[in-house]
């Protein structure tokens, strides 16, 4: 399997810049998800890797070899689309074998490779059926089978689960991840659905308006969003952002939010306008909490609940256990788990570097 490297990639369509300044390394055998809202440039990036679009400038390397000028078919990459285009009049076996027949692979090898792919996808039982009458999931598996048999250098997938309903999407996510663990194929996967990204990715690349905002492991993106946009886009409910009262100086270890003093990890940069970012699960309902407010709504989710607390600094969402009973209208004090409290420059939207933040799960150090 192969590594894919993007160097300062740009793509313009007329006046519109779809992708700008994109540098990215997809390691061999990694499952990388490009995540972002529609129009963020993720599909254009994928199409450039595939060779379906030519970049306006920049380079694409596969295994160190510059393929920027190569045609799609010369790149040895398999593309799985959202709308699986199967040949309805052909059997499943012939659909999967189709790319190999085109490449004049010996018949015996075709049979062996189709059988192996079918076994992996658990569709041995339907190899002789026409694809016309298959369920959405089976059609998706056949489309994957057609990509697998080619044994390409990499798989590119553009929202392959987009048309399936929610329950089934979840199941297919697990299947795709399992398949990846078996094949260990370099995969670049495009989606706008964060739960798909979280469930499958080794690395997530968050894009918006043509730019890569952050690339990293799912837990890193979740706990240490590089920008306000990432904190809002990832997480359900999203991260809370509260305006800080005064400019923050380098070396600060506390900030004021509407007069309430909040301890933060040692801040290594200064900014005039600052936002405090905190995930709902790191907001603690605390009688002694400096920030005071009033419960305005409660979303019960079984194992836990999300309380919406109206404070002078804005509405704060807190994820708390199911046993907490605070009715709408009840007063509540809030405190924030210090090591999970992040500061952002309100103008640029970027996170202010902080002193040593040790990730409790992984031991990773962020700053």
């Amino acid at each position: 399997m192969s590594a894919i490297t993007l160097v300062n990639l740009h793509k313009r369509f007329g006046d519109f810049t779809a992708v700008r300044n994109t540098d990215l390394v997809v390691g061999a055998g990694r499952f990388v998800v490009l995540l972002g809202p529609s129009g963020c440039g993720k599909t254009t990036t994928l199409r450039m890797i595939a060779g379906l679009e030519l970049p306006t400038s920049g380079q694409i390397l596969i295994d160190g070899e510059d393929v920027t000028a190569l045609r799609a078919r010369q790149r040895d990459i398999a593309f799985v689309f959202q709308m699986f285009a199967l040949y309805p009049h052909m059997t499943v076996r012939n659909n999967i074998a189709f790319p190999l027949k085109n490449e004049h692979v010996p018949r015996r090898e075709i049979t062996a490779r189709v059988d192996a792919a079918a076994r992996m996808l658990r569709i041995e039982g339907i190899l002789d059926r026409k694809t016309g009458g298959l369920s959405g999931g089976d059609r998706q598996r056949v489309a994957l089978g057609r990509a697998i048999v080619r044994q390409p250098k990499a798989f590119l997938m553009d929202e392959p689960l987009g048309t399936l309903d929610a329950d089934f999407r979840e199941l297919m996510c697990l299947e795709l991840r399992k398949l990846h663990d078996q094949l260990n194929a370099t995969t670049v996967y495009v989606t706008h659905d964060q739960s798909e990204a979280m469930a499958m990715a080794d690395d997530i690349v968050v894009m918006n308006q043509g730019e890569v905002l952050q690339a990293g492991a799912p837990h890193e993106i979740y706990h240490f969003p590089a920008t306000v946009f990432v904190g809002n886009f990832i997480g359900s409910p999203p991260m809370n952002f509260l305006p800080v009262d005064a400019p923050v100086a380098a070396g600060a270890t506390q900030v004021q939010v509407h007069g309430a003093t909040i301890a933060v990890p040692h801040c290594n940069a200064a900014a005039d306008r600052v936002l405090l970012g905190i995930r709902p699960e790191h907001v603690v309902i605390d009688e002694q909490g400096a920030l005071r407010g009033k419960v305005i709504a409660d979303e019960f989710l079984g194992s836990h609940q999300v309380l919406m607390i109206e404070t002078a600094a804005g509405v704060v969402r807190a994820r708390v256990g199911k046993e907490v009973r605070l009715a709408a209208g009840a007063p509540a004090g809030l405190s924030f788990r210090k090591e999970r409290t992040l500061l952002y420059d309100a103008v640029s939207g970027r996170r202010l570097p902080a002193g040593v933040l040790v990730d409790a799960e992984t031991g990773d150090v962020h700053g």
Partner: protein
Amino acid sequence: MAEVQLQNVSKRFGLTVAVDDLSIDIKDGEFVVLLGPSGAGKTTTLRLIAGLERPDAGDVLIDGKLATNVHPSDRDVAFIFQQYSLYPHLTVFDNLAFPLRSPRRRTSEAEVRMRVQTVAAMLHMESKLNNMATHLSGGEMQRVAIGRALVREPRVFLMDEPLSSLDAKLREELRIELKRLHKSIGATIVYVTHDQVEATTLADRIGILEHGHLVQLGTPREVYGNPVCVNAARRLGSPPINLLPPSLFDSAVVPEGTATVAIRPEDIVVAEAGERNAMDVKVLEYSPLRHLLILDRNGTAVVATTVTERNFSAGQSVGVSLPARSLLYFRADGRRIPT
């Protein structure tokens, strides 16, 4: 707005019994969510209320009046489907105005304009009124579909998985909007879904359906914390409730006739190192993002969640306790044994 009652309603299609002797009282202004696996009879129940199906037995009452033989168009209920079917050649405004302009209603054009404007404001769609319906995103189309029901000011809203074709972010947005709408207009809503987040956050009461039977009807907290049967217990909860053999527990505390002991993952107490009264189990898997532990107890997998992130690695031994007050006992036929 109105109350809705089903009294001993049954409906079969050929040999399949879709709805079996179902009775339910839905109060005026109540948001009731029907939850169940496919084939449980959820959609048929909605269609019976709407009058799109006729019951083989039993009665449908709307606002206390017998509606069993009333034509769907005279029941004054609005049905919202999963697949929003808008008129593609009409603008958003005309799509919203459509039900009001039907000859049966004879609404004046001034009033049509006023009601469409009000509903558009409610749904944050004012700026899109002149767009063609085909130039909308999926979430906006579903908003227009909901808006088309709202302008009619019907007595009852029936919604059949209205959010399930939308992606996660949009689903969440519209879910919050639906909740807000329900609060502001006080509508009676019967809502079918198999998404448990929608069920627990939207519902005043959840009705659990199985094989055409209503097995439990209660507030989300009641159904979650006090399920009447194994199936109701499994219907809510993510990760799902642990169903464990009684042999894992002290036979002195397990009531007679228990076939399954159940405990919610968040009720399992993961002890700090060295704490007593805990049993030793091995960690099979730990997912830090979901704070989820898969443990091995004598060959049975037990799922636990912790409130905050902790540091566990596979193979490690941890002490856990399963507090007696959190245990639920079920018979072999699935019924709950009261304790």
